[in-house]
């Protein structure tokens, strides 16, 4: 079947509308995705496929669709990042330390999606405990980007939500859940030509999501369009008494916010994001983005975020410190893969020494050091003070503008093994995204163009806290102006 009449070529919104118009059944739609996912092992986007799950749920959805009793996401097949606990389905955060952990409970975000009628195709690859920017730290091995250079060179899909971004770019699901601690939704979206939305901190419940850095983690969707992102967020968001930082605010219908009208909106362009090492084509794309938004009636304003350069250093104290506390629970006692030792202390040390991968160990050691007696004030407290200054930068900027426009990443997708020699180089991937997590703001990456090698590049819009409606509205205008229609070919399929 060509892409023309292939159901996997539909967007989430198109599939939803097609199901309701009875152009095809949920069973047919799901089978198309199940078949495509089954042939995608070369990409390693799915680390666990759940076709029975999906097809059984599709039957139930067809019954509801037949009775005109469809819920918002009725019969729509999704992929789930392996950081989300799924009842009865193995969840490992792509770490050996969790072994074959099978949660007896469901994360709030996925529970919301299933309650709205969506169904699960399987669990998606990610960097171990979401620590990475290339999906190469996964215990299940690297995930490949469906985009390659013309010479056929294999590239990373970004990270940590690399399975989610690769799956959506390769049409292995209508949408995917993802999480973003320093850029883990937006960076992989930019590297795969997809849309990645990190909502405001507190918009989605973190309950049942494997914790990395609790004051920074936030769940969001990766989709092919901004409209799909709005539809997904409407279902994912909401208050949850089990996450005391989730906010008790009405969830708007985000799709209804997509009016296409951004006349009079003030778009800030932060001068500190113009870094020396930025490739010219990204600089040019950024300028193009400003022109697109101006042509749509927005006003472009120069703003300053003076503490930007300190965001990554602050992040590399705060995130590891929180991780060292959060990951203390993996001790081989109650769940996961235990490694026996001479006594209980030895058991802890072996379990953690063998169970955690190198990057996770590095971060746990940094975090432990930053929190240890004598260093706490110099590192951790200092980083928290700088974090406040970074958040204040945004507050000051928002006195002059409504949204910010920046590139999402400093480069397009890069080859595998690139960051292995130097962990710091890998950290620089998050230079434009990490500020948003530190300030708890929403941000979205929209595919905006191709570089000289034919690889996708993204532009990022940053909103005010709980300003997702305005953010999505502007993102859709940007998406439409960019008219990004390039697609990777199916070099990876096996039949």
């Amino acid at each position: 079947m060509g892409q023309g009449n292939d159901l996997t070529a539909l967007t989430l919104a198109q599939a939803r509308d097609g199901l309701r118009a009875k152009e095809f059944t949920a069973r047919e739609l799901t089978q198309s995705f199940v078949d495509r996912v089954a042939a995608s092992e070369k990409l390693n986007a799915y680390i666990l496929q759940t076709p029975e799950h999906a097809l059984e749920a599709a039957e139930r959805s067809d019954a509801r669709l037949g009775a005109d009793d469809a819920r918002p996401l009725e019969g729509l097949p999704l992929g789930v990042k392996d950081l989300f606990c799924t009842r009865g389905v193995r969840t490992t955060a792509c770490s050996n330390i969790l072994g074959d952990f099978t949660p007896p409970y469901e994360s709030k975000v996925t529970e919301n999606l299933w309650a709205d009628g969506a169904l699960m195709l399987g669990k998606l690859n990610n960097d171990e405990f979401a620590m990475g920017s290339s999906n190469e730290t996964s215990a299940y091995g690297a995930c490949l980007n469906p985009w390659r250079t013309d010479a056929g060179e294999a590239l990373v899909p970004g990270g940590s939500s690399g399975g989610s971004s690769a799956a959506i770019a390769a049409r292995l699901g209508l949408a995917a859940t993802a999480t973003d601690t320093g850029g883990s939704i937006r960076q992989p979206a930019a590297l795969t030509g997809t849309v990645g939305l990190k909502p405001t901190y507190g918009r989605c419940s973190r309950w049942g999501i494997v914790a990395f850095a609790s004051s920074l983690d936030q769940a969001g969707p990766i989709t092919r369009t901004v409209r799909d992102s709005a539809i997904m967020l409407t279902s994912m968001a909401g208050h949850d008494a089990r996450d005391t930082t989730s906010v008790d605010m009405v969830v708007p219908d985000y799709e209804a916010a997509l009016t296409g009208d951004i006349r009079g909106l003030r778009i800030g362009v932060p001068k500190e994001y113009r870094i020396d090492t930025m490739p010219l084509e990204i600089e040019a794309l950024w300028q193009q983005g400003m022109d697109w938004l101006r042509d749509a009636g927005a006003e472009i304003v120069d703003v300053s975020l003076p503490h930007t350069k300190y965001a990554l250093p602050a992040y590399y104290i705060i995130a590891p410190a929180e991780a060292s506390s959060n990951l203390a629970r993996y001790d081989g006692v109650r769940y996961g893969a235990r490694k026996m030792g001479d006594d209980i202390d030895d058991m802890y040390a072996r379990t953690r020494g063998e169970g955690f991968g190198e990057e996770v160990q590095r971060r746990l050691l940094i975090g432990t050091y930053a929190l240890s007696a004598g260093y706490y004030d110099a590192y951790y407290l200092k980083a928290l003070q700088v974090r406040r200054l970074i958040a204040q930068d945004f507050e000051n900027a928002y006195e002059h503008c409504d949204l910010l426009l920046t590139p999402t990443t400093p480069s397009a997708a890069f080859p595998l093994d690139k960051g292995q020699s130097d962990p710091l180089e890998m950290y620089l991937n998050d230079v434009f995204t990490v500020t948003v997590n530190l300030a708890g703001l929403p941000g979205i990456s929209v595919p905006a163009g191709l570089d000289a090698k034919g690889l996708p590049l993204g532009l990022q819009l940053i909103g005010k806290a709980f300003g997702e409606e305005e953010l999505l509205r502007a993102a859709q205008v940007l998406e439409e102006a960019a008219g990004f229609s390039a697609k990777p070919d199916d070099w990876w399929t096996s039949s």
Partner: protein
Amino acid sequence: MVRRIAGLARIQVDDDKLPALAKELSAILGFVEQLSEVDTENVKPYTSPVEMQIKARADAVTDGGYPEDILANAPEKDDGYFAVPKVVE
């Protein structure tokens, strides 16, 4: 130093890995050293992006009663308990 931190973090690190790890950690700490340039005099530490009073729930038992679920993923269990190597001799 690395050995001490690894001990605090309860992570066993092989001796032959220590030198490389020390180098990597020094590089990361060197990178974060930039923070000392920032004047943070009288700046209150930022502890949560959510500027709100966290809701308190009723002080009541709201969960529990399913020990099989709790023990389902245990590496070792014994008579309804998690089992570990002897802690007290």
